[in-house]
């Protein structure tokens, strides 16, 4: 039991080091009160997904602890996990199942008896507008439909905490708007943790935000205080396809003279275009490379919000005071 059982989520010096070499998360202390809508921001590789997977008990912390409602979370904390609805950044499903099969399966994994499971899944299938495709194998569903199915799966056992990692990825603008409305509705009764690259999106729904940078928690406070000016030279593309092909395409794009930098991680490509060239031409070349590699676009955003002024400033400030912070933590 933790000292603060009233907290929905509590982490103490949460640290994750992969293979003893890569520090993905460093001493993160977090307290989330029930009913909070918390936004988790940060660029690719900042540690957002690692934090979420530690909260879910999918990864084992190198040091530190996670408590949910005062109980310690871990790989075998099934009862605690039943109180969380999770949407992963890139949902994977058993391809041979249908949407109904999968939701039924998730309900059974959550220990729901048939008499409560069946009505819940029927309601959710209707709510996410999958009723016409509910009998189709999951392998035939588009990225947008998979995102909706993932949302439905996270809600089936009416959990108290929702942890949604990039929930709007792959959704069309209409579905994204509906999802934001859904979040607003859910916020009245649940604790929500939302990971996103989009500051603007989080501003609409969150009452608090944290920013992660290179595994460090560099901001924890009011979401309104974070700026939102977009950087027009930054293009973000979410892709669907084979990981090796995506990496090969990213490598090819990175070699363009007009591009300062091309980063690829977790299905997202961040491209920074030189300011003195035509963005439209460069983008056309980029899209042609992606098409040649037979990659599908799940999302394209010109003027990436993740690199907006305030986040960059926070990151730079953190970089400059890293040593001071490290010293302070030792002294404390």
């Amino acid at each position: 039991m933790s000292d603060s059982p009233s907290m929905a989520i509590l982490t103490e010096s949460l640290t994750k080091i992969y293979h003893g070499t890569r520090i993905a998360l460093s001493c993160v202390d977090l307290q989330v009160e029930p009913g909070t809508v918390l936004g988790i921001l940060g660029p690719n590789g900042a540690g957002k997904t690692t934090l979420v997977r530690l909260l879910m008990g999918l990864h084992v912390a190198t040091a530190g602890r996670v408590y949910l409602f005062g109980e310690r979370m871990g790989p075998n904390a099934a009862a605690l996990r039943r109180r969380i609805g999770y949407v992963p950044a890139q949902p994977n499903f058993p391809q041979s199942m249908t949407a109904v099969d999968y939701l039924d399966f998730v309900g059974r994994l959550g220990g729901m008896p048939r008499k409560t499971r069946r009505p819940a899944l029927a309601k959710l299938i209707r709510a996410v507008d999958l009723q016409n495709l509910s009998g189709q194998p999951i392998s035939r569903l588009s990225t947008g439909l998979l995102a909706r199915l993932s949302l439905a799966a996270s809600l089936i056992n009416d959990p108290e905490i929702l942890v949604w990692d990039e929930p709007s990825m792959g959704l069309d603008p209409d579905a994204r708007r509906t999802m934001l409305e859904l979040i607003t509705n859910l916020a009245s009764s649940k604790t929500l943790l939302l990971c996103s690259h989009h500051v603007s999106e989080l501003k609409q729904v969150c009452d608090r935000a944290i920013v992660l940078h290179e595994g460090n928690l560099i901001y924890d406070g009011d979401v309104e205080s974070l700026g939102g000016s977009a950087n027009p030279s930054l293009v973000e593309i979410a892709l669907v396809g084979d990981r090796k092909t995506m990496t090969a395409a990213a490598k090819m794009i990175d070699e363009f003279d007009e591009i300062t930098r091309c980063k690829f991680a977790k299905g997202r490509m961040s491209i920074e275009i030189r300011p003195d060239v035509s963005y439209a031409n460069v983008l056309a070349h980029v899209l042609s490379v992606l098409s040649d590699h037979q990659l599908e676009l799940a999302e394209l955003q010109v003027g990436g919000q993740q690199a907006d002024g305030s986040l960059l400033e926070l990151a730079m400030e953190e970089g400059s005071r890293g040593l001071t912070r490290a010293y302070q933590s030792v002294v404390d």
Partner: protein
Amino acid sequence: MDSPVLINPWWTRLLPVGAIMREDLRQTLRHWAFIAWAVLSILVTILGFASASGDAATGAMTTAHFAARLLTYHILLWAGFAIALGASSLPSESHLLGDAILCRGISRWHYFVGKCAARTSAVLILFGLLTVPAIALAAVRFPNDIAWSGVGVSLFLVGTLMAGLTLVSASAGVWFRSPLMSVAAALMVLYGFGIVVTSLEIESLSPLVLAYHLPEILRGSTEALASHHLVPTLLIGAGVSLLGSLMCFAQKDV
């Protein structure tokens, strides 16, 4: 915000294990490799029966000999499929383990037990469906020299052997992400064990010696079992390896 108090019947705690077992069994029984194994086994059993019918007419084949031959196929040949089926159980789902399954209200042991139970059931279902009708038919068609208690003991021995091999192989799956690597490792270790104990003439652990004694066990004599320890050794090995693998699996990032 107070958390709701959920009062569910006690058996709902077993629902996750049942869900994993049911889903895995459904997928395994529909998988091309399992169907190919089943078809091949049926064909071999039918061919074996046809060939034995000819020998039975000359008096050279009895039910005990036919049943022993059939069970020997399982010990030496079909055991390879059981090993492959067990070893591929966890790695075959490694790509969706975290995001689709273990992020739900399920513990690692629920998942592991469900998978092991499903694969073992698949092996035993096929084993039962192949051997029981074939031996019953042989008892009707061939000179009957079997004791039904002996048949029960033999089926139990070979079935337990197959289940033990499946479980040991399933525990190997924890250590590999690739099904191919896991299957190859399990086949090498388990067949390697069989070859080593046979070549070192450790009779009490040799699968060949067990196969050799099957006709007399089928006739109702269980004296040979007193000196044969393969099945209990395998079960102890399976228990230890399952425990070790479960401990490792419980600390693994998925």
